[in-house]
């Protein structure tokens, strides 16, 4: 399967040049770009690990691309995403987020159903990858 979180997951994987143009767009909006990675892509896993701090005060996308390549060297078989933060009043949140790196195999998620009273079912989604301990999930 393919995890389709983020803004561009339905397109073919972005090239570095395409990623760089999106980063440049974010910087021009005055947003700070952050690199995050995880080996637990559960849809409600909000807090991926941070690769350093969000890059405030950056002007050129090249800085982000350099950090992204460093991150890929270490976590090349994990999910890596870029998130852009807008600190302006009324937003103060993420404005753009997209996946820029994926594991070679994406095993997907198990859906568990617990039958309750009155035909009600309690659903639990869990990532097959998280059956193994952190750090040993993708090969």
């Amino acid at each position: 399967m393919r995890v389709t979180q983020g803004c561009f997951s339905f397109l073919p994987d972005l090239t570095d040049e395409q990623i760089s143009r999106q980063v440049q767009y974010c910087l021009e909006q005055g947003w700070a770009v952050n690199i995050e990675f995880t080996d637990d892509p559960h849809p409600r896993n909000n807090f991926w690990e941070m690769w350093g701090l969000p890059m405030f005060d950056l002007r050129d996308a090249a800085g982000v691309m350099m950090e992204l390549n460093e991150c890929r060297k270490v976590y090349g078989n994990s999910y890596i995403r870029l998130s852009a933060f807008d600190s302006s009043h009324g937003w103060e949140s993420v404005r753009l987020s997209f996946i820029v790196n994926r594991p070679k195999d994406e095993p997907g998620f198990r859906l568990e159903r617990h039958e309750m009273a009155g035909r009600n079912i309690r659903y639990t989604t869990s990532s097959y990858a998280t059956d193994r301990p952190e750090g040993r999930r993708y090969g």
Partner: protein
Amino acid sequence: MPPNELMTTTIPTSRRTPPEESNMNMHSMTVRGKDRYKSGVLEYKKMGYWEPDYQPKDTDIIALFRVTPQDGVDPVEASAAVAGESSTATWTVVWTDRLTAAEKYRAKCFRVDPVPNSPGQYFAYIAYDLDLFESGSIANLSASIIGNVFGFKPLKALRLEDMRLPVAYVKTFQGPATGIVVERERMDKFGRPLLGATVKPKLGLSGRNYGRVVYEALKGGLDFTKDDENINSQPFMHWRERFLYCMEAVNKAQAASGEIKGTYLNVTAGTMEDMYERAEFAKELGSVIIMIDLVIGYTAIQSMAKWARRNDMILHLHRAGHSTYTRQRSHGVSFRVIAKWMRLAGVDHIHAGTVVGKLEGDPATTRGYYDICREDYNPARLEHGVFFDQHWASLNKLMPVASGGIHAGQMHQLLDHLGEDVILQFGGGTIGHPMGIQAGATANRVALEAMILARNEGRDYLREGPEILAKAAETCTPLKSALEVWKDVTFNYESTDMPDYVPTPSVAM
């Protein structure tokens, strides 16, 4: 800010009241002292409802009406009558006024302008003191402003065009239960419009078949599916059936995609007790969103908004029924007023037009509605039909929804007209896809992502839209097929409602 400064700066000079007419209206005609309270009938404009020198206070509510007096009725008298009948007046003088601070409670019409290019119609600006209204109650606000006056015999027609809601009043409302920012955080979706579809056919599917449509559409790439306004609990599908099968579909699609998904479960019912029961069940099943129809009424909407805030639920409003009073230009209530009331009332989503789809909506007017939903401050923009500066005092933002007759081939136009914070609902445009529902959903999602990518890259996506879509379709057969099927579908009809003011180039520019 004094009203004259606020308004004259934005009204093109050539369209202002001709001098001879404004002279007639320039002075207060209010009868004062003992004579004011002599038994009998007195013209409204002499009772204190026409005060051309009145400077509205920052805390006043201001309403703008389009007044069409009966032939021979003085427009100022007609406008004063609207002020009177929407505040303290009755048809005759009553001595009991003298037991009250009557001058404060009288609504004051302070300005009457002829409507440009519409003979016989006048814009009447009326100020209401804040004490005339109960805090946090749309029912009370609307009962005052539109409760009595729309059937008034001396008028041929009357339309409430816009309202300025003072911050002091805005702050007495909860506002959207969730708001755009928190909705995006909860749904984990940033940087693009959200995608939805209304399940079709809207009537007749069993719960099991209905859930099938939901699953296919969500798995294919949509973020939301939606019950239609009249899907409640009918013989072919009891509401519990729908809820149970829909949540199976939502959870299965979430596991298949790794994304958060939702389906607007319509909890509209005959009584509040039934609505609460349905909403509680939706919560128990883990739904992120429920839905109500505008026809349940303002009080019921506010109750559900409070419930939604208490229960971390996104609240979708379908504006069922609004066109009965919003569509005609001369009579009723403009949708921009309904949008303002709904932002106060506390819904999170509101259908606000598509511009290019099958339902009414001229681009400039629709832009005005979207601004009202999404901005923290709306400057007066007559060319969008927005007559007043409006501060929202950090009330949550309301997500507009574009639904009805739109398809993937219009993605560049939709993004241009409606922006990024919007839900695009492709019902027919998903379910009617020749390769099936999943393919329809995928076509829409790919078209959207390709367009956002191109826009962010700085391309002239509006002009290059068809090329961008064609390029994306090279690697996506469902999109290719969608573009082929719907390539010529457009809905070009004359709008029945559009702004009265057109921007004119000025020397200063």
